[in-house]
């Protein structure tokens, strides 16, 4: 009876309280509210393996929490940002098209600044207790403080994939990559910026070539920009003529670059996922002669997050999905190279023995480096560097003269 009265009260109160957001600290209420909601998760849809993983998450939340999860497959995360923005412009403050976005970096920074995000919620999720906040960059996103406005779900770190049939030895630095590409013209390329993997390559080159990495953690200014990026432009000026198609064309995305490697058009490619090569070999997308390496000084890494727009009509369910993504079962599945091969954001020491066994049981696969081999993670530069570098890249190399 009490339940019924409460239900009646809730039903009555809902229209008045439209826009009253669920409170993540009262998790039982969140679960109650989430049941029966539908979450439109806007996530990049260019990778079959990721799509399958999201479908699996959808099955889980439907079975466990009565939530319907729809994957809206984007070609570009910015499409979802655009959508939320046009809704704000049109005054749509509730029941917007986007409930959850796979996001990080510049898109997160833009949405947070424009007040397009719901939160803070991330650190109130029950599974946040398991997250490795000390060892992994989950509280900053490209040096921008997260402040609970997005919840991490996967760790990424730059590795280079090399086809050992043509390039048997790892290359230890950007200079070594340049030397090799000069001797083997046309066998290396990277996705065309502003694709995120392409800009990641530029960042990795900048971090590896600069004499003073500390400067990159602060904003780029008119004073420090030219001098700091000079080694990068010298490197790219030398590298570009030696690239695939002499730098007159670039693959559009990371997977398109993968296809080039599968077609034996290139022998070296960048990846932001240490397990991607193994997963691609398992899917017949890469020859089994491909292996991965990291640079001697280490490579940059960051976390992938999910965020909830301010006008989502299913915030409770979206939070439940974010929490499920942090569960040991989902994290272990994502780390399985046969599924995704993404790094976990959890602190394995904080898990129960049963949960830890899920991770210990994983066979990382032939082309995946062990955590020790992956070595130290270098922090992402402040986003302002990337904005300027991407613009300069477009005018220097994005237009063939």
């Amino acid at each position, binding site marked *: 009876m009490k339940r019924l009265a409460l239900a009646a009260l809730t039903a009555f109160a809902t229209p008045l309280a439209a826009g009253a957001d669920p409170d993540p600290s009262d998790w039982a209420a969140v679960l109650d509210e989430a049941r029966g909601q539908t979450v439109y998760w806007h996530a990049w849809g260019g990778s079959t393996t990721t799509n399958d993983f999201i479908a699996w998450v959808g099955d889980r939340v439907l079975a466990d929490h009565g939530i319907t999860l729809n994957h809206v497959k984007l070609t570009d995360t910015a499409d979802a940002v655009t959508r939320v923005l046009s809704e704000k412009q049109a005054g749509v403050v509730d029941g917007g098209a986007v409930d959850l976005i796979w996001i990080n970096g510049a898109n997160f920074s833009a949405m947070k600044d424009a007040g397009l995000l719901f939160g803070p919620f991330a650190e109130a999720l029950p599974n946040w207790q398991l997250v490795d906040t000390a060892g992994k960059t989950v509280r900053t996103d490209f040096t921008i403080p997260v402040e609970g406005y997005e919840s991490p779900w996967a760790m990424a770190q730059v590795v280079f994939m090399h086809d050992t049939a043509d390039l048997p030895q790892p290359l230890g630095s950007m200079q070594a990559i340049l030397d090799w590409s000069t001797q083997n013209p046309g066998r290396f390329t990277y996705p065309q910026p502003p694709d995120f993997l392409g800009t990641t390559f530029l960042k990795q080159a900048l971090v590896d070539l600069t004499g003073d990495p500390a400067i990159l953690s602060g904003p780029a200014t008119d004073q420090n920009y030219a001098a700091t990026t000079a080694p990068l432009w010298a490197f790219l000026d030398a590298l570009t003529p030696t690239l695939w198609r002499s730098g007159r064309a670039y693959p559009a995305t990371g997977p398109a670059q993968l296809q080039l490697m599968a077609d034996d058009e290139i022998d070296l490619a960048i990846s932001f996922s240490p397990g991607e090569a193994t997963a691609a070999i398992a899917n017949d997308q890469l020859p089994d002669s491909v292996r991965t390496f990291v640079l001697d000084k280490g490579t940059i890494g960051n976390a992938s997050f999910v965020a909830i727009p301010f006008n989502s009509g299913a915030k409770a369910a979206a939070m439940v999905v974010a929490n499920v993504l942090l569960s040991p079962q989902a994290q272990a599945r994502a780390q399985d190279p046969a599924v995704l091969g993404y790094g976990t954001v959890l602190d394995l020491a904080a898990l129960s023995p049963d949960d830890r066994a899920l991770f210990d049981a994983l066979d990382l696969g032939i082309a995946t480096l062990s955590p020790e081999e992956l070595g130290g993670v270098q922090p992402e530069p402040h986003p302002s560097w990337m904005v300027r570098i991407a613009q300069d890249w477009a005018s220097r190399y994005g*237009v063939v003269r």
Partner: protein
Amino acid sequence: MLRAVPVLAGAIMVVPVLAGLIGTALPAFGHFPAAGLAGPSLDPFRQLLAWPGLWTAVRLSLVSGFAATGLSLAIVALILAGWSGTRAFRWVERALSPLLSVPHAAAAFGLAFLIAPSGWLARLLSPWATGWTRPPDLLIPQDGYGIALTLGLVVKEVPFLLLMSISALSQVDAARSLTLAQTLGYGRVTGWLKVVFPRLYAQIRLPVFVVLAFSMTVVDVALILGPSTPPPLSVLVVRWMSDPDLSMRLLANAAAMLQLALVAGGLVVWALVEAAILRTSGPWIARGHRGRVQSGQRLLALGAALLVVASVFAGLAVLAVWSFAGPWQFPDALPDSLTLRHWIRHSEGAAGSFLQTMTIAALSTLAALFLALGCLEAEHRHGMKIAGRLLWIVYLPLLVPQISFLPGLQTAFLFGGLENGLGVVVLSHLVFVFPYVLLSLSDPYRAWNPRIGTVAATLGASPGRIFWRLRLPMLTRAMLTAVAVGIAVSVGLYLPTLLIGGGRVATLTTEAVALTSGGDRRAIGVYALMQTAAALLPFAAAIVIPAWLWRNRRGLLHG
């Protein structure tokens, strides 16, 4: 009642386009309240003009547009001049419907998988003929001149113009004109070009304009086959539109306005070229040269036709092979093994998208058919003719670049409180589907023998009874063809589905183009084939259903 239908149809063509253009023009002139910007200002255009690759992007749009249109028109004219009415031509005609129904994106993928240095042609010829053990470092496709892009457009525009021409040929009395010219001693090709083509061109002028506008502004084909350093202007608009930096949105809208101006200018230039050709060709026609036996030109025409047909079908074949491929390394001509894995893996998602695609296509096409029949019947009964100057209204959504008005239309729908649903997507599809349905239906409708109606009327039948009991049944075949055309158009629409649907409406086309960015050829193969099937099945039905219905009434089969 009936008189209202043409007005309604006109509104459906004009209102969204105008609303969309206004919605795009405001941000282009710096008025963008969401980002806290109030216009008017010319800053977005200054920023656009300062963009380093702008003129290359503009040149690419112009060159690929004019080259694809000119080449397509030349091939169509040569094919018709050399072969119309022959047995070989009937084979080309038979290939038309499947060719037309292959969505642009699928045809472009097929072509890319064929001609790339690691594509099927290179694999078939390597290493025995070429000596390549790994793919050569050649800039194909994505070449800086847009040659691959132009070819990709030509293989789709030739079937379209050919279809438009064939339906127009009956109106210009082509067969008898050609016979007459030949009895006067003209060679077949020369005679056709001098006697039939001028009258035919007057009939297909608007479709040619559509081809020009489309080729200058295409996005999906340009993404697949066009260069990327920089891409054509239309791709830049889409890219800037999706930039997280909001100020880029203004740049995108300014570029969309520039695109609109380019198309308008392009159409004017084309019209000027027409006038110049008219002036110079008059004396050529009047001079009376008969032309020699032109087997060379005829062979050239047949070769071009076969190349168009073969490249689309071979492209589909290579898509099919990829969708079943296990490991497949260069330079193997075929995969190491075949597997059903990719089809099983994508079957669930693809089946859902297939259903969604067909629902949208069916609803928008039925609405278009209803409107088209209403318009044509109103023309028949009340003389409200959509022809001459008014025909421009029908062509408006096809001539104004999609990229110039859809972003504004999306905002307009949101302001109007219409959002996210299947309904608005169907409505936006209707804008593009209706012109094709009307064009496809109007010739057979007008060609219907009015004496049958007169006889019925003298027997006491009302106009309504004549419409329902005589005209519609006799036009079953034409209506089914119009429906098939409408569905094929709807299936292939990318930008309207993406922008108006807000990403919530996933069709085979949006899914396939989303996969493009991933470059997974096996997944692309599955989706592109499903997409082709969705467009092709209605054409098959349009052939099979009348054949079954009229199995005892042979005379109706060609009605």
